[in-house]
Structures are given as structure tokens and as C-alpha cells.
């Protein structure tokens, strides 16, 4: 069975290669081929899953060694895969949700002339993401890590003729690269510390080195995770990334790629467990992002950006949980999977809405859509209930566990983290209700598009609706399934698990969670359900305005990095031209000036030359005489 692991990656990779190199001949069948290969990968994943379930919990990890990648003295990097329970979870999520979104895209991208290439990119993404989660060493993980970055770049900028899309793609790649510095330094640190960077040996001997080194490695891994998972301070790209086609937002920027940071931290659990300081920073980052994303999500009128803020916030939950150590790893992954379902569903719903509304994204121009798009409304609604943690739905189970674990951290930290998670839950309920109300309820606020066509909201084609329905099912049932089929036991051999002991009872936490949810929903209803929503956004409070601008982080980046960088490069270009080159040119000019003066001696008159010859002879005689005299 091990040999099938390569097939997991190989199928979508083949699809990408064929679709991208195949040319226009494949235009008509390309999307089917892409979808088929994603489905093949999913099928292989299921087969491997079935095989894995048949084994003992401890023996479930599978390895496949393909070949030595970079064989250099003292440096072994292999193309080798490791499929354990953690990877398996991701494989199923990636290929499953990935396949659904492929199907969805068939309808969504129907009118795009470059649909073949879109599927090529999607396949490329799936392959890279699988490589990321299947790698058995950090360098190969880095390969996948950058691969998904590339796919994300290509897909965000898929509509390249829009300057905003091209800029957003570039921004995403660059911010991710900053995070990549972290990953590469972490790998280098591992290499100098352990002499290798394969998961097995590094994690097994993590305890043998100093805590300081491990903290450094941990913080660098966190930096990488921040970049990929859009955590503060590297979160700024995610909102802009919504320029990409909606299926991309659903797959990459909600369900899978952005959660790679969580995977990285959970995968490196042994390192973090031995470095409590790093763990603390992880939780702080998670907590800050959780609130940051939630606040941003409250202020955005663009439906996708509101959802992007929500994604950021939900990943904040996961990171926070991952930072809690063995009491949180499992729940981080569990929330990751449930979030993958409901957020993908929400994005697909949003895409469906946009599909029917002439690609309008401003929620203030929606309203009353539930009658026109009943299926979208229902699936979106179920996703909504899941994310706010409506009891019994998937989000409820996973989020509740994280909040409980946060309290279980213990001490003041535990209280603070618990409070933050609860606050986050309230805000989540608030902004998601706002989205729901502005989109599907209230009166119509539709506007003609740029060409003057009034929108004709309609239900999307089957290829789009079916994936939405399936994801809605997952959003509803996922949590319960995990809760009652032993997700904890499933992951425990990989991540380890301890029961957290919260200072308050689990029932109290659950009650509090439900209570803050109700408060959040109620507040949103008061603001958006009872009163009509203005088409033009009101000026809003200082916080609202700041949140609309991503809490000014973009402005900060622009002022410091973009403007400063532009000035720096401009001045360096000047310096290079005047100073570095100038020194050389100055030397040349002075030599030239001297020669110009010397040239006057060469006046072309034989007699002048004769004088110099004669003088030279005299000097030679003088020198000879002097030498003899001495």
C-alpha cells in the first residue's frame, strides 16, 4: 500500500502538467480531466485510509522513499513520504474538498476562456498541498510549502488583466516569502543542531538540545506559520487574496492552504512541547489574530473579505489551540477540518451569490436573496450555523473544545486566553449574522452593474449546487462524527493528547459559549435585522473605519516597507550610479584629463619630439654618471 502514496501526488501533478502544457486542444475536456485526477487522488486517499484503519493505532504510519533528492556531503535530503494519521486527515480534507471544488469550478468558470489553465493550477495546488502534508522531512515540506505559495500566486492573479488581482497575487507571494525566511532558518537551525531535518530523528531527539535553541526553532516555525496562515503580523495578504476566483478562495484561502501553518506547528509538536516560551508566543499570536480577524470581519462590506476576516479569526483559534500543547493539538486539527467544511461551504455559497448577482461583492447591494436562491440560502445558512457554534453542528464541537482547552491552560494565561476565545465566539456570531442578514434578508438593494444590466438572481447550476450541499452536510455532521467516532484517539499516536483540566466545568464553558453566541447574534439582529441596511456605508466609528482598512496594518506596511523601500532602492540606484561607479569614472576622468594635457606635448612637430629625445638622452647620461659616481 505504501507505494500508493506517490500516486496521491502524482495524479494531480500529472493533471497539472498535461493541462498546462497541453495547449488549446484540451480546452474542451480539460476541466473534466482535472476533476477526474483530483477524484483519483481522493479515491487513493480513501483506499489508504481504509488500509490504515485496519492496522493497529501505533503501526498506522506508512513511509515511502522515492530517491535521494540532494545528496551532498553531510546533508541528506530525500524525496520520501510519510503518511500517518495527521497526514491522512489532511489528505482526505485536501482531496475531498478539493474534488468538490473542482466540480464546483466546472460550473463557476464555465464562461472563462482560460478554464483549462484554471484547472491546471488547481491540480498543481492539490499536488503541492499533498506534498506539503506527506513530506517526511522539513525540506520537502518546504518544497510543498512554496509550491502551494506558487499555486496560490497563480490563482489569486488568475484574472491578471485586473491590476488589483496582479497586485494581490504579488503581495500574497511576498508576504509568504517573509514567512518562508522563518521556515528556512528553522531548517538551518535543525541542520546545525541535529545534522538532519527529517521528521523522525529531529522530533525524536528534540529533547536533547537546549531549550534556547528549541525556542528559536519554534519561533522561526511560527514565523513561517504566520506567513502561510495569515496570522498577525503577516496577515495582510489574505484580504487582498480575495481577488482570486471564489473557488480558489474556498479551497486555498479557507479550507486548506492557509491551515498549513497549523499543520506545521502540530507536526512539530515535540519541538514546541520542549519550548514553553515559543508555545506562549504561539498562543499570543493566535489570540491576537483571533480578535483581529473577527474585528476586521465585522467591518467589511465585501462578502468575501468579511469571510476572509472570519478565516483569519478561525485560524487564530487553531493556532491558539496548537499553542496550548498536547491539550490542544487534536482540537486544533479538529477545528481545522470542520472549518474546512463550513468555510468552504460559505465561500462556495458566496460564490454562488456573486454568480447570480453579476459578480457584485458588496453586501450592501444584496438583500432579500433567500427567495431567489433557496438552495444557496439553505447551504449557506447551515454553514453559518456551524461557524457560530450552533449546538450540535460541527463548529460547536470543535470550537467549544478549544475554548475549554484555553481555560485549561491554567493560571492567569488560561483565564485570559479563555476570555479571548469567548469574546471571539461572540464577535464571530455577530459578524456572521451580519453577513447572513445583509445578504439574504431585508429588502432588495440591488444595483445595475457597470454595463447597466440589472441583476437577475438565480439558483446556480447543479455542478455548483451539489458541492455546496455536500459541504453543508459535512458542516452539519462533521463535528458530531468526530466527537463520537474517536477523532482524539485517531490522532493521539501522532500528536499526543492530555485531558486539560479547566478551572471551570466543561458544562459551564459550553453554556458560556452558547450564551455569547446568542448575544452576538442578538446584537447583529438589532443592528441589521431590525433596521434597513444603508446602501452607502455610514462613516462609522473610529474602530469601524480602522477595521475597514484592516486595522491600518496595510497603511503601516505601505508607509514603512513600500514607501521606505522605494526610497531606499531609488537612493541606492543613485548611489550606485554616482558613488560606486563614480569613483571608477572619476579615476578614468582624471587619467583622461592628465592625458589631455600630456597630449599637447605630442604636437606633431618632429623637432619637438627630437627635443624630448635629446633631453632623455641627457637624463640617461646623467643617470649613468651618477650611478658610476655613487
Amino acid at each position: 500500500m505504501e507505494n500508493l502514496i506517490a500516486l496521491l501526488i502524482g495524479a494531480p501533478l500529472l493533471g497539472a502538467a498535461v493541462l498546462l502544457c497541453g495547449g488549446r486542444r484540451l480546452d474542451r475536456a480539460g476541466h473534466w480531466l482535472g476533476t477526474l485526477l483530483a477524484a483519483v487522488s481522493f479515491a487513493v486517499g480513501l483506499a489508504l485510509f481504509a488500509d490504515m484503519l485496519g492496522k493497529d493505532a501505533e503501526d498506522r504510519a506508512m513511509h515511502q522513499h522515492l530517491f535521494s533528492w540532494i545528496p551532498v556531503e553531510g546533508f541528506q535530503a530525500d524525496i520520501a513520504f510519510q503518511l500517518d494519521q495527521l497526514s491522512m486527515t489532511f489528505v482526505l480534507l485536501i482531496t475531498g474538498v478539493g474534488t468538490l471544488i473542482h466540480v464546483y469550478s466546472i460550473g463557476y468558470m464555465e464562461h472563462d476562456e482560460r478554464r483549462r489553465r484554471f484547472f491546471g493550477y488547481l491540480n498543481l495546488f492539490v499536488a503541492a498541498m499533498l506534498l506539503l502534508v506527506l513530506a517526511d522531512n522539513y525540506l520537502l515540506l518546504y518544497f510543498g510549502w512554496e509550491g502551494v505559495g506558487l499555486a496560490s500566486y497563480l490563482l489569486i492573479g488568475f484574472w491578471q488583466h485586473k491590476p488589483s488581482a496582479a497586485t494581490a497575487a504579488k503581495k500574497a507571494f511576498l508576504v509568504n516569502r517573509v514567512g518562508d525566511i522563518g521556515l528556512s532558518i528553522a531548517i538551518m537551525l535543525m541542520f546545525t543542531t541535529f545534522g538532519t531535518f527529517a521528521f523522525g530523528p529531529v522530533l525524536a531527539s528534540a529533547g536533547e538540545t537546549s531549550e534556547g535553541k528549541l525556542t528559536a526553532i519554534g519561533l522561526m516555525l511560527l514565523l513561517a506559520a504566520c506567513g502561510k496562515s495569515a496570522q498577525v503580523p503577516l496577515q495582510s495578504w489574505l484580504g487582498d487574496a480575495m481577488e482570486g476566483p471564489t473557488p480558489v478562495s474556498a479551497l486555498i484561502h479557507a479550507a486548506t492552504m492557509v491551515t498549513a501553518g497549523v499543520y506545521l506547528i502540530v507536526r512539530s509538536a515535540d519541538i514546541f512541547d520542549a519550548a514553553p516560551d515559543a508555545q506562549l508566543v504561539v498562543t499570543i499570536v493566535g489570540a491576537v489574530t483571533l480578535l483581529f480577524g473577527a474585528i476586521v470581519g465585522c467591518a467589511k462590506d465585501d462578502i468575501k473579505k468579511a469571510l476572509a476576516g472570519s478565516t483569519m479569526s478561525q485560524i487564530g483559534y487553531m493556532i491558539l489551540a496548537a499553542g496550548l500543547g498536547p491539550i490542544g493539538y487534536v482540537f486544533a486539527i479538529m477545528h481545522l477540518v470542520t472549518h474546512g467544511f463550513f468555510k468552504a461551504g460559505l465561500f462556495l455559497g458566496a460564490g454562488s451569490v456573486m454568480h447570480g448577482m453579476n459578480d457584485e461583492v458588496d453586501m450592501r447591494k444584496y438583500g432579500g436573496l433567500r427567495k431567489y436562491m433557496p438552495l444557496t440560502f439553505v447551504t449557506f445558512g447551515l454553514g453559518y450555523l456551524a461557524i457560530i457554534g450552533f449546538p450540535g453542528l460541527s463548529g460547536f464541537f470543535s470550537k467549544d473544545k478549544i475554548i475549554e482547552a484555553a481555560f485549561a491552560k491554567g493560571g492567569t494565561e488560561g483565564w485570559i486566553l479563555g476570555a479571548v476565545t469567548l469574546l471571539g465566539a461572540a464577535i464571530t456570531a455577530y459578524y456572521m449574522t451580519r453577513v447572513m442578514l445583509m445578504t439574504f434578508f431585508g429588502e432588495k438593494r440591488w444595483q445595475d452593474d457597470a454595463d447597466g444590466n440589472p441583476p437577475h438572481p438565480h439558483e446556480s447550476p447543479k455542478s455548483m449546487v451539489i458541492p455546496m450541499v455536500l459541504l453543508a452536510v459535512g458542516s452539519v455532521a462533521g463535528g458530531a462524527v468526530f466527537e463520537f467516532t474517536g477523532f482524539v484517539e485517531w490522532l493521539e499516536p501522532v500528536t499526543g493528547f492530555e485531558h486539560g483540566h479547566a478551572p471551570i466545568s466543561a458544562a459551564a464553558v459550553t453554556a458560556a459559549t452558547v450564551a455569547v453566541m446568542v448575544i452576538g447574534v442578538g446584537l447583529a439582529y438589532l443592528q441589521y435585522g431590525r433596521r434597513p441596511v444603508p446602501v452607502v456605508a455610514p462613516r462609522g466609528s473610529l474602530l469601524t473605519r480602522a477595521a475597514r482598512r484592516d486595522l491600518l496594518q496595510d497603511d503601516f506596511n505601505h508607509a514603512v516597507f513600500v514607501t521606505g523601500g522605494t526610497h531606499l532602492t531609488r537612493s541606492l540606484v543613485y548611489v550606485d550610479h554616482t558613488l560606486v561607479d563614480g569613483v571608477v569614472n572619476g579615476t578614468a576622468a582624471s587619467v583622461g584629463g592628465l592625458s589631455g594635457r600630456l597630449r599637447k606635448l605630442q604636437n606633431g612637430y618632429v623637432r619637438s619630439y627630437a627635443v624630448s629625445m635629446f633631453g632623455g638622452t641627457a637624463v640617461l647620461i646623467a643617470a649613468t654618471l651618477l650611478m658610476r659616481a655613487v
Partner: protein
Amino acid sequence: MNPVNYLYLAALLFTIGAVGVLIRRNAIVVFMCVELMLNACNLAFVTFSRMHGNLDGQIIAFFTMVVAAAEVVVGLAIIVSVFRSRHSASVDDASLMKL
């Protein structure tokens, strides 16, 4: 009298000839000055010959004369052909080496 005086005389004549080469523009006169320098050398050779008591110095002076004759023939031919084309025998007129 010390025969070294001949050497002083040779040196003086040589210097006069050299200065003449430098200050005259007429190519023929320049040539004459060159001849003067050669003759000064010859005088020195002959004096050295006497000083050392062998005839090699005279031989060299003899060869110098032959070479001088050859040189004069070619040099004057050049002057004549230059004069033919430029109607001038001034060495300053031939300043094409100047950029």
C-alpha cells in the same frame, strides 16, 4: 697638450650639431647638422684609436662615413621628393603625426 682636448672638441661639435637639429626648420640644414654630429663622433673615434693604440677606432669611423654616405643619399632623396610634392623643405610642414 693632452689629446683629450680632441674629445672636448668632439663633444662641443656634437652638441652644436644637436642644437642645430633642434632649432633649424630647413630639412637640408638639419641634415647638415646630423653630418656635423657624425663627424664629431668620428673625431672621438679617431682620438680613442690613438689613445688605445689600435686601429679599430679608425675602422669604426670608416664605417660611420660609409653609413653616413648611404644615409645622405637616401635622406636627400626623401627631401627632394618631399619638396616636389609640397614645395617646401621645412620639417615643420610635415606635422601629420599631430592628431
